[in-house]
């Protein structure tokens, strides 16, 4: 009897260390941050006062919060669309009928943007997008712009520049995920379409997209969840500026906490990031369990 119980406990022993670490080091902080958002002057004052939902009410009345929320939506949707577009095109190119050795080489070169640390990515693009940098030089010499543009310093351009950088940085994840999806599409489907006289776009819409559909939805949601909370890339390239033109929820949270030392307000903003992520995570998990069964 005891032996049987012990045997049934085996998987729990294997799980214990991992789940203990994740359970304590993720759950305790999550509980804490929600608690912080209900108090005033946390961390700085030893004895903070309970204020209920006052911080949330204040935040909803703050135009800075709404503009950060709007910027986050623009940045997230723009980035995900960029990743999907570039990722799909490059995945299809790499998957096309070329020599397998060449395929491997192209694939590794095209994954490159994904492996650099955000600091290096930010520095690289600051160099390229500098008013005296290569991008302006190239655009001027082909006559697209007459004056050098301050890509990261002009409030009207900064978000666009950020989207270009984010697209460059993030498409490889989509490309790699789609690549394995594309390789699993049976070639008979394309051959049948060829016999029916389908052109490239027909085949793309009626064979590739439906076959990739489960992959596309899941991967796009993952990308959305991660881009939504992205901090280092934005902080290190524009710092949320110029002004507040590229301030997203994550940089706002960081600024409130570690620049203004307003930990209660920062926690409140952080909880809203958590809440919105939780909705998308829910959608992702539902999709995952549907795919599995």
């Amino acid at each position, binding site marked *: 009897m005891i032996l049987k119980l012990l045997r049934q406990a085996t998987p729990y022993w294997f799980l214990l260390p991992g789940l203990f670490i994740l359970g304590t080091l993720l759950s305790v902080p999550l509980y804490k941050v929600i608690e912080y958002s209900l108090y005033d002057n946390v961390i700085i004052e030893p004895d903070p006062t309970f204020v209920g939902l006052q911080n949330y009410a204040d935040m909803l009345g703050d135009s800075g919060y709404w503009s950060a929320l709007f910027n986050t939506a623009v940045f997230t949707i723009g980035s995900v669309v960029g990743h999907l577009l570039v990722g799909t095109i490059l995945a299809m190119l790499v998957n096309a009928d070329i020599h397998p050795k060449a395929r491997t080489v192209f694939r590794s070169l095209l994954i490159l*943007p994904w492996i650099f640390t955000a600091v290096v990515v930010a520095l690289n693009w600051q160099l390229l997008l500098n008013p005296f940098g290569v991008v302006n030089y190239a655009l001027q010499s082909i006559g697209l712009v007459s004056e050098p543009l301050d890509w990261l310093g002009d409030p009207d351009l900064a978000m666009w520049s950020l989207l270009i950088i984010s697209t460059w940085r993030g498409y490889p994840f989509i490309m790699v995920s789609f690549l394995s999806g594309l390789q699993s599409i049976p070639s008979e489907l394309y051959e049948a379409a060829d016999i029916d006289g389908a052109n490239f776009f027909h085949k793309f819409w009626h064979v590739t997209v439906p076959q990739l559909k489960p992959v596309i939805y899941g991967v796009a949601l993952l990308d959305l969840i991660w881009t939504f909370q992205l901090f280092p890339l934005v902080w290190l390239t524009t710092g949320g500026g110029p002004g507040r033109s590229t301030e997203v929820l994550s940089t706002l949270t960081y600024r409130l906490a570690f620049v203004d030392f307003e930990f209660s307000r920062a926690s409140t903003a952080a909880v809203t990031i958590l809440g919105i992520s939780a909705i998308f995570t829910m959608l992702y998990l539902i999709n995952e369990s549907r795919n599995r069964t």
Partner: protein
Amino acid sequence: MSGQISRVVVSPKKPWLREATRVRITRVSLYLALILAVVVITFPVLWMLSVSFKPTTDTFSLPPQLIPENFQLDGYIKVLQNETFRTFIINSYLIGLAVTFLSLIIGTLAAFAFSRYRFFGDQAAKLFVIATQMVPTITLLIPFFGVIVWLRLYDTHLGLIVTYLTFGLPYAIIMMNAYLNTIPKDFDEAAIIDGCSPFRVLFSVLLPMATPGLISTAVYTFLLSWNEFLFALALTRSTEMRTVPVGISMLVGEFGLKWDEMMAFSVIGSVPVLLLFMFVQRYVVSGLSAGGVKG
């Protein structure tokens, strides 16, 4: 760019061309499109290399020189001679290796339970692990700071190791679970009949067969730790505890104009990642698609 590509991939039927010629034209234009894509995509990296090898005064010289006219190694020499930079690199290796080692052990144990046992709560536990990947790191930052201070781990290597372990574990568990699932259960059963304990089954039978999975998980967790910026910035204070990404970002403040040194340090900081990636790319890509892993 999309105009380029659609022209390339669509191969309109031209009856006056022989089939073989058409295939050849399609293939050549495919290669051209791919080469163009690679040039555009890798240009920022090439430019980083270029700037690291020329004097700062030439950084913005016109017309831009991709191959430096005044080739020099000053940036690299200064960075490598500087003891502080060496400390950053050693810290990053130390933390990265510790995180990789611990994630592999703890992650494999959990993955083994998920892959080989059906038990009460297994689906819930699995969903919990997947959900932990999605927790916004910025939300964790403020309370994590408190927890790390409370554990007396602020400004220590151990503090960062514990932090990255929490971030790396979900991926390690999911990737190893996916890999172990590909190994038939017949192997375990044979070993159990021979009288092996579950531990022996895992370590002597399954793990030797799971080497590719272990490699891709190891590379992934190492990359995650090597590249992390936000927590490395917030959970350390002294220069002796800083890692490479924070070190590079500190350079920006200190010598805003020394592009050669900044880029040389960026290159040096990226080399381990590049080498790792080039050698084991095959495994990483397969592991990535198995785990659905963070970009």
